[in-house]
């Protein structure tokens, strides 16, 4: 167990190091922009992974929480001239609060209630934002100031996102390693047994959901001050599918799986777009194939392969 966790940590650090020097090789502003968006998705996917991969609870609306994060910050900055940093902070607070509330309502029950509630929630929240035209300007979106002013400062954004990704990754690592992490994983593996051993199942499920929502809210808050526009499109079910797909294809329940998934799939989707293919057709197909036949995903397979080489052969 200790050895395996050490391997997970080393491998994740190597991947983060590669990500850190990536801009040396990617110099075009366009592709740097793509990488920043990829980091946004990775961050959201890391949040979803905590819930889906480690706790075994399924929200199908990570993008809805990203959207709430975006609009929390965007509205505060737009109407009350808050500094973007404070806006992002409030994005964290609001998504955590909504996560706690929804979790409190539907995680008392076993079964697919969380998935059902979140899918309804995601359609509704997007609708409310679209139709509250007076406040949110509907589909036109809200223009908000960027974190570092005008254009052309991709490196600053890239490393801001990267620092946040590293911090969240460290936080998640410590969490998963701690007693709380064991609680969460015990709930995933057998909730009845976990309860029998005295784990407060409902509370820890709710905790995981709120923390996961918070990470998505943080991702959304950062993103809106990079793009400079909050638009309801970012809350489409499709966006949630992208985030979930990145986690599943990268490797659910692994430390760096979501990051690997995000960094590979987002540039890939930009690439296939040039051929006039809907990238979601391919991704959705991959989600089905991976979850059906190849549980470990990309990062999981890599880790398992290394493990076999290092410790057994």
């Amino acid at each position: 167990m200790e050895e395996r966790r050490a391997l997970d940590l080393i491998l994740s650090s190597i991947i983060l190091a590669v990500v850190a020097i990536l801009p040396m090789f990617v110099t075009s502003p366009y592709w740097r922009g793509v990488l920043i968006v990829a980091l946004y998705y990775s961050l959201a996917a890391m949040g979803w992974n905590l819930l889906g991969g480690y706790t075994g609870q399924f929200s199908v609306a990570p993008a809805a929480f990203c959207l709430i994060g975006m609009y929390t910050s965007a509205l505060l900055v737009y109407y009350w001239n808050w500094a973007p940093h404070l806006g992002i902070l409030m994005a964290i607070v609001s998504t955590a609060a909504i996560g706690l509330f929804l979790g409190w309502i539907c995680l008392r029950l076993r079964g697919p209630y969380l998935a059902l509630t979140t899918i309804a929630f995601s359609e509704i929240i997007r609708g409310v934002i679209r139709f509250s035209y007076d406040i949110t300007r509907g589909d036109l979106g809200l223009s908000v100031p960027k974190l570092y002013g005008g254009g052309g400062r991709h490196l600053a954004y890239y490393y801001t996102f990267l620092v946040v990704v590293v911090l969240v990754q460290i936080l998640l690592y410590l969490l998963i390693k701690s007693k709380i992490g064991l609680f969460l994983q015990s709930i995933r593996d057998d909730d009845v047994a976990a309860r029998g051993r005295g784990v407060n199942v409902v509370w820890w499920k709710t905790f995981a959901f709120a923390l996961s929502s918070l990470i998505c809210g943080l991702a959304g808050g950062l993103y809106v001050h990079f793009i400079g526009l909050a638009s309801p499109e970012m809350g489409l079910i499709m966006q949630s599918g992208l985030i979930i797909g990145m986690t599943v294809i990268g490797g659910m329940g692994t430390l760096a799986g979501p990051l690997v998934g995000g960094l590979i799939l987002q540039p890939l989707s930009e690439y296939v777009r040039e051929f006039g293919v809907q990238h979601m057709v391919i991704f959705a197909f991959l989600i089905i194939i991976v979850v059906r036949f190849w549980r470990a995903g990309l990062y999981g397979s890599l880790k398992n392969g290394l493990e076999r080489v290092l410790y057994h052969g």
Partner: protein
Amino acid sequence: MDIFITGIIMGTFYALLALGLSLIFGILKVVNFAHGEFFMIGAYAYALIALRLEVSPFFVLLPVIVIGMLLGVVIERLLMRPLYQKYTEWGAMRDEYAIIVTFGLSLFLMNLANQIFGPYAISGPGLRPLRERVILGDIVTMSSHRIIAFGVGALILIIAYLLVRYSPWGKVIQAVSQNRFGASIAGINSVRVSSIVFGISGVLAGLSGALLCPIFSAEPFVGALPAVKSFVIVVLGGMGSVPGSIVGAYLLGVLEQFGAVYISYTYRDTFGFLILIIVLLLRPQGIFGEKAREV
């Protein structure tokens, strides 16, 4: 009165959708997140076939039934089998697999439709010319397509309900949904039953899509909202309860119409979500459901 009748009409289509979802939940204890795409494919099938062939739109409902059936059976065969073939080993992984795989399927079908047919809305011809109006008494004026579609929908709903409730096949379905293991000891082929249920579910959702097609038009993402509503309905009626899903559907249809008229037309789709939250807070097992186990 007008509002009430519109609510009942919408409720019928919701019931067709929710019934299939509820049957699947009863049999497999999983939610099919691709249910809205059955609806979407039904709508496309109806619109495309009706626009190509010069026949009465009523005959077009037949190929829609066949397509819905095939779709359900094929999906069950390809993706649902792992849920019960390794029945004992899976345990906690069942929900995980079912949610992700059906969600992935939903995205796949939506985007495939988008890729093939493009994002444009295709509207099919009505069962009666769309401009024709019917005046019932002196209170209600309504397009005659709506009335006839309602009639057809209600007829199918009644047939489906009677089949599930009283026919030998229906008894088999009930047996498996009560106790899969027990049913298979009694000699019931539960795999075949799952296949049939998926077929029925595909037919009901497809027909619902076809009948509503002249009103809503077929487009790749048309299934999303009806699907969300049918999710609300199965929770409202009680997960897996057949009468619950029908009562829940009419309840939601009527409440939504009243909400749209008296509270806010713009936010009419949010009422479903509010109902969902209230039900989960006050009566999580739904109207007819057994008490869901709390952990």
